[in-house]
């Protein structure tokens, strides 16, 4: 609404959500200045509307009328607008934090998607068997010598989203040997083979042209 609009007492009442009687009462009590009289009709301006809105807001905060009067009587139109803008109640905070929400959602997902802190080498953590021979096929179910997934921080999911086969897949590591070439090794074998893996990786990288000094295995 344009700031120089003038309203009749009933229009002002409708805009402010009060009755004309209340407006007359506030005027009598000195909370509201009288109308600007233009000809036979009393007219109220934008500042009157702001004052009424402010009175409603402060009443909602349990301020008595005398205190409200004291608070707002000296304020000009700009200050009234500013005060009104700042008095809005903050929206109630949502029940949980984003961290808690995500821990819960990701905790309900099966092991492969739950990640601990990224290790310094940024290797992929829990990865199901990705059959390089049949890359087009969906994930194969677990082979007989599967080990149960290593314990992960979130509590076990009551209902895993994927079928039982996915939950049995063991953890794998991927180590880049060269662009487009990775060594895919299960955690079990990684632990069992120890330094052999490092030698294998160094050899692979040397063969494929990557200098050893660039990458710390």
């Amino acid at each position: 609404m344009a700031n120089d609009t003038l309203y009749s007492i009933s229009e002002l009442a409708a805009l402010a959500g009060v009755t004309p009687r209340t407006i007359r009462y506030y005027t009598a009590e000195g909370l509201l200045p009288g109308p600007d009289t233009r000809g036979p009709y009393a007219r109220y301006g934008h500042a009157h509307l702001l004052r009424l809105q402010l009175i409603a807001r402060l009443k909602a905060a349990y301020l008595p009328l005398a205190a409200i009067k004291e608070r707002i009587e000296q304020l000009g139109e700009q200050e009234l607008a500013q005060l009104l803008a700042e008095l809005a109640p903050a929206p109630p905070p949502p029940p949980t934090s984003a961290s808690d929400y995500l821990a819960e959602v990701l905790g309900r997902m099966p092991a492969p998607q739950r990640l601990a802190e990224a290790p310094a080498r940024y290797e992929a953590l829990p990865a199901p068997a990705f059959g390089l021979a049949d890359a087009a096929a969906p994930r194969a179910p677990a082979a007989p010598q599967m080990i149960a997934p290593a314990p992960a921080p979130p509590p076990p999911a009551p209902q895993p989203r994927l079928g039982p086969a996915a939950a049995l897949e063991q953890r794998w590591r991927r180590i880049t040997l060269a662009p487009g070439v990775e060594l895919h090794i299960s955690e079990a074998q990684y632990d069992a083979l120890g330094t052999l893996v490092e030698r294998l990786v160094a050899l692979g990288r040397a063969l494929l042209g990557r200098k050893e000094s660039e990458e710390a295995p």
Partner: protein
Amino acid sequence: MTSTDITLTVATERSAVACEVTSQRMVEWTISVAASQRQAERAPLNLALILDRSGSMQGDKLRNVRQAASHVLDLLDERDRAAIVAYDDQVLTLAPSTAIGDRARADLKRAIGELQPGGWTDLGGGWLTGCQQIAGAPPGDALARALLLTDGLANRGMTDIEELTHHARELRRRGIATSTFGVGLDFNEQLLEALAEQGGGRFYYIERPAQIPAVFHTELGNLLTVVAREAFLSIGIPRGVGLELLGDLPHERQGDRLRVYLGDLCAQERRHVYTRALVPPDAPGTALALHGELGYANIEGRSITLAATVLFSYLREAQVLQIPVAAELLERAGEVELATATAQALRLERAGQRQQAQALLQRQLASSPAMPAPAAAHYQLLADQLGAGLSEEERKATHFAAYKARQSR
């Protein structure tokens, strides 16, 4: 930055209503943000770049993604943090949420350089992991946003659009917004649009890989000039009045209030929100007020509310009809209604229901007499095309155009 940099105004097609019958009035709420005077003051950013590295992302695409990500890091400074998550059928945290500095930037760029194409697409896992990186950063007043890029369909892990959209909404409520970037023709535009819209961010359709860096630049540009965070328009619905929201925007109704979610507002932005009010009859000389409030947090984190009211005066119907109608306002509202109908029709067309798609758009066109001839012709042509079936390029382009038109940015 004071609240005077943002204004809320409201207009209607005709501010008089009939005493004898129900009147239908289009109400246009306009939110205007002034140009940002003080560039130095901006909210710190807490970002996660969540990058698709599935098999199809090879060659040009991945090269451009790396370039775009690197470019984003160049636009950030010590006020900001970034995490980099890559996903195919596994989720790889290439870099956990890191405060930006020269050394950190170099480390992050090196991590991006190691991005290689891989397997399937666990979009849900990648996205949520990125959000988790954001959530795990030290608390503060940073603007948190996940930037999710993909070129294909979510075909691993969480794939249900309803479930993913639900999480987007819940994360937005907890302060983490999501913007989505779809590259090429194979991604699911319905999913990415829904994630961004419910997630309080923006959706971008990127036709060619070479455009990826420029689009990321645009999003960063928006983030760096946010002036109002988590803005919403709350409208009180007086007793007896019907209020309909146009544009299919994210909203909630609670009792007698309608709350429309607007996301973050940037410098120099202007948004329109259209509501159609059904105003019941009442005695002549009385008036009915429709009161709206724009709520948001400024960059210092303080809650601000701006208000605007439109007043409908009751007159005899004969007098009301003498008053001219704001034709341009109705045209703008009509565009939004057609864009909404287009979005719905596209969903039908994608599902193979071409005749229903055409009929839906045709019906909307018939009930929009305010449309100027060129726009009407455009939508008529589109209706015919829907009936015949669209190519994937047409589908993606039309969907993106309808998304932007619904938002009335």
